Structures are given as C-alpha cells and as structure tokens.
C-alpha cells in the first residue's frame, strides 16, 4: 500500500532559527495536505498543494510540492514559540478515496 514518510521525527531549534520538515511518498500523489497539531490538541488543516512544483506561502511558512508529485516540504523561517507542535503531511493517490498521513515531525522551540 501507499507509504508516506516524514523526516525528521523530532526537531529542536532555538527561537529565530529556521525549520524544515520533509514528506516522501512511495507513489505519485494527486494532492498533499499539511496539518499542525498543538500539544494535547487535534490536527488543524494548514494548506493543500495540487500542482507539480507548486509553492505556497503563509507568512513565515513555505510549502513546496515536488515536480514528480512524490515529495513535499514545509519550511518555517525564524521560528517562534507559537510554532511548537507536530506537523503532519497527508497524501492522496488519485481516486484512492482517502489520504495517508505521515508520522509527523514534532517541533520544539527554545526561547
């Protein structure tokens, strides 16, 4: 079946440093979504990428979808303590009817 892998599993940064998490799929994806889960909370949708090579920005967050639509990344510039949480990618195969979540990258930020 489809596998979605995320690296790293954990990332500890000093406030102000940058952060990147990577998502890789074993199959070509029709779309990829990113979610953020704060400690003790539930996943909250951040963004969806659909097109090959697509890049989207949300303030300090930059999301990319690979040319082959098998990988994606989330980059945070100048992290803040409010960025703490676990970031998940979720990829869907064409006509699969469901997405597969990666295991997430947990970000901690030291003030």
């Amino acid at each position, binding site marked *: 079946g489809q596998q979605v892998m995320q690296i790293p599993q954990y990332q500890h940064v000093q406030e102000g440093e940058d952060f990147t998490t990577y998502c890789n799929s074993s199959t070509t994806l029709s779309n990829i979504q990113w*979610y953020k889960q704060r400690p003790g909370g539930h996943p*909250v949708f951040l963004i969806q990428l659909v097109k090959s090579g697509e890049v989207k920005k949300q303030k300090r967050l930059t999301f990319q979808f690979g040319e082959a639509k098998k990988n994606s990344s989330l980059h945070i510039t100048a992290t803040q303590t409010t960025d703490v949480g676990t970031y998940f990618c979720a990829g869907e195969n064409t006509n699969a009817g469901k997405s597969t*979540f990666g295991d997430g990258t947990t970000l901690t930020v030291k003030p």
Partner: protein
Amino acid sequence: NAGVTQTPKFRILKIGQSMTLQCTQDMNHNYMYWYRQDPGMGLKLIYYSVGAGITDKGEVPNGYNVSRSTTEDFPLRLELAAPSQTSVYFCASSPLSNQPQHFGDGTRLSIL
C-alpha cells in the same frame, strides 16, 4: 457551527468491555474518518465512509466496527476492549476525499 463533535472526551475501560465512540458533524460532509493516534505517533486510519450506508476498512480495522446510517453520524464500536486499543481516537470529516479534513477534539481511551 459545531463542526465535528466527539463524545466522550475521556473514558477508562476494563479489558473485555465494549463501548461506542460517538462522532457527529453538522457540515453535511460526505466523507468521514476514524483515526487512532498512539503516544508520540502519527494518525492511523481505522475506518472511513464516503457517504451514508457505505463504510470501508483503513489500515488498522481489527477490533473495531463502524456504521454510517446518516450523513451526520459515524460511531465507532469496540466490542472486546484490549490494552492495545489504548489510544487517542480522532474523528474527521471532509466534503470530498481531496479536500481538507476537519477533526474533532478526540476521545482519550484507556483500557486497563
């Protein structure tokens, strides 16, 4: 709008007991999902439904059952609780499979 509502928020069960986790959404979404999240881990799909009357297995369906008699409700049933089912259970919904999922607050279940 309430979005996705899960009850109960917390529950402790004894081994062998059964229970139903409730999930209701008021957004008229076709798709609904049940996930489990073990401590420090990602989301594993248990069951999902593409519409009323239709359900399908996810990655980890063993030990669980679901039904979808209405668009709004998607209950998850544990028949014989086992310690391995201790987890946080999230229900989610989306209009279509390729659209964002809205999650409930989760049910924290411990089986002792």
